[in-house]
């Protein structure tokens, strides 16, 4: 299988299965699932999603499935194309803190926890990456850009050269070429060409997913506790792994249940209505959300690439020709993206303002992941604009570890006291 890394020099790839670490990883998921399970008045469609995190069922299914599995990172690896080729995308961004020490044997310490955490898995020979045939890695931030070379020691890696300047005329053509190149790689992998009807199916499937999410989002604006934000992120993030049509069916059930439950009127927000912005909060690193729940407030919105943003956008072609659809796919990943890896934060600020207003939030929590420079550098302006718009905001500078939970609690509690 082709890789973008033609080997001339090579690190010694580290393989270190460690049952202890793997057990801790499993325990972290199970603890969180158990915790979510105990929430009062929880909808009955939800445990389905927990299973994707706590059991190996789906992974086993993937391993016996006669389809190629493409591991992806970030928001930018075009799912439409992977589905159109008949392959399965799995997003490998991880929120486990337990694999970080393992990864640090190869990776430097001073890089973002998400990358370290994700890289722990190939070393352990555990997790979703085990089921992957190839990895598609966009060059979003510095750490992701360099991660490819490390991963190439374990699996074939395709880099996706992500542009950083959202300039419509220039970027459209350039990025479309990159998208076509990616399609070409997929076609080579599968030994068959992707045809317009297949791509159309994929686009429509993902549009259905987006519409379903949008409907859920709207329902949740009025009744936020239908799904606690932990549950919402769990649902969103389970779509990283699940079989898409099955996920859609299940989520339609969930949506119907939500609709019915909303009539009871007991799912109104408790305490303050908060919004979370900033670096991705990925299963099982839900500590901030858990603290907010414990303090009796409700998160009603987020703009994260592993949350709201992931399922919100879809490709809307002007014409359903192959070219037209590819253009739409290309546009969908770049232009509406609020990832801070692009040069300006303005689009993101607009998005935050919109969500904050629409969800009528009392305050915004800026989740600043330690050693993620891009979110950190955007923080100042985001905070300033929010304050100018009379939206209180607090920055939480933290990482995947649990040791600062008490300090975070103090900050969040003080923030809640402040916006009384």
């Amino acid at each position: 299988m082709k890789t973008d890394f033609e080997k001339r020099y090579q690190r010694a790839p580290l393989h270190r299965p460690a049952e202890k670490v793997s057990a801790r990883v499993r325990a972290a998921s199970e603890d969180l699932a158990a915790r979510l399970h105990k929430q009062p008045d929880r909808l009955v469609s939800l445990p389905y999603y927990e299973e994707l995190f706590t059991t190996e069922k789906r992974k086993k299914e993937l391993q016996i499935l006669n389809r190629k599995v493409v591991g992806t990172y970030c928001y930018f690896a075009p799912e439409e194309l992977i589905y159109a080729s008949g392959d399965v995308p799995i997003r490998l961004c991880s929120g486990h803190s337990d694999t970080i020490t393992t990864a640090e044997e190869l990776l430097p310490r001073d890089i973002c926890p998400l990358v370290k955490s994700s890289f722990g898995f190939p070393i352990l020979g555990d997790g979703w990456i085990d089921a992957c045939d190839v990895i598609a890695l966009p060059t979003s931030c510095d750490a992701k850009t360099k991660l490819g070379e490390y991963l190439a020691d374990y699996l074939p890696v395709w880099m996706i050269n992500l542009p950083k300047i959202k300039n419509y005329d220039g970027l459209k053509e350039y990025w479309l070429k990159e998208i076509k190149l990616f399609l070409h790689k997929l076609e080579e992998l599968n030994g068959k060409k992707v045809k317009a009807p297949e791509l159309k199916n994929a686009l429509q499937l993902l549009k259905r997913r987006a519409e379903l999410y949008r409907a859920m989002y709207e329902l949740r604006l009025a009744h936020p506790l239908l799904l606690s934000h932990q549950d919402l992120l769990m649902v969103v993030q389970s779509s990283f792994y699940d079989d898409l049509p099955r996920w859609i069916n299940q989520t339609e059930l969930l949506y119907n249940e939500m609709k019915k439950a909303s009539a009871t009127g007991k799912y109104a927000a408790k305490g303050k209505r908060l919004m979370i912005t900033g670096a991705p909060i990925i299963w099982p690193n839900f500590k901030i959300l858990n603290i907010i729940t414990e303090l009796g407030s409700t998160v009603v919105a987020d703009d994260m690439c592993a949350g709201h943003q992931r399922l919100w956008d879809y490709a809307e072609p002007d014409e359903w020709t192959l070219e037209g659809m590819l253009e739409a796919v290309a546009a969908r990943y770049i232009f509406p993206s609020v990832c801070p890896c692009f040069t300006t934060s303005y689009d993101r600020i607009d998005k935050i303002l919109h969500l904050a207003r629409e969800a009528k939030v009392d305050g915004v929590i800026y989740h600043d992941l330690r050693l993620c420079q891009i979110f950190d550098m955007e923080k100042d302006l985001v905070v300033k604009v929010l304050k100018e718009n009379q939206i209180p905001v607090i920055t939480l500078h933290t990482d995947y570890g649990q040791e600062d939970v008490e300090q975070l609690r103090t900050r969040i509690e003080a923030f809640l006291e402040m916006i009384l």
Partner: protein
Amino acid sequence: MITAGVDIGSVGTKALILEDGKILSTEIMPTGSRPKITAQMVLAKALAKVKLKPDDVRHVVSTGYGRRVVDFGEKTITEISACAQGVKFLGAPKGTVRTIIDLGGQDIKVITLDDEGNTKDFVMNDKCAAGTGRFLEVIAHALEIELAKLGELALQAKQTITINATCTVFAESEVISLLAQDVKKQDIIAGIVDSIAERIAAMSNKIGMRPTVAFTGGGAQNIGLVKSLEKKLDTEMYIPELPQFINALGSALVAQRLQSLR
């Protein structure tokens, strides 16, 4: 009516007894490893000083890092709100306080207040201890000097040296190497104090400091730091009489309000 505020900080635990807006007594002890017991002891001692029994106290409110471990408090508030409340209560001997700098054991907090004295915004240092009270303690230990004397000594410095206060551990080793170079202790202390002041000033400027600035917490007792910070911020600061007890005072005040609500 008598109320009490207990502030369980990371280094010291403080208690303050308040009767209708008058401070009856205060007490401070190192928090140690068993904050729950320490808190009980501090409160008991503070009460004993003015010959009161626990039953005389109507309400207790706890604050500080360990606020959730005590079992006698009826309510907990964060040290940020407590600090703002305390300062608001003390009035405005040097003009309306609009910014509070609080230097505690493991936190530096800068709080801005609106014209009514309510919290408008705040920043705290990250989980790193550089520049906090703990940091001063480590340096004092390395220099074999009592913590309380650091301030005085800093003022006696003849020359200024620059020390990096971004990491406690590295700053400590820097101090030790300076000692090896026969640099005077006073100068080193002045350098350390300057670097902390620098950090605090950066935080306050970032959040938009407005005078008058109040300086509270244990750090405010360090006269060297006060002077250095005043120079950096270019403003005279208001230092309350019992700077470490402001948070305890704030929570005792909140306890009084509990009553009036009933």
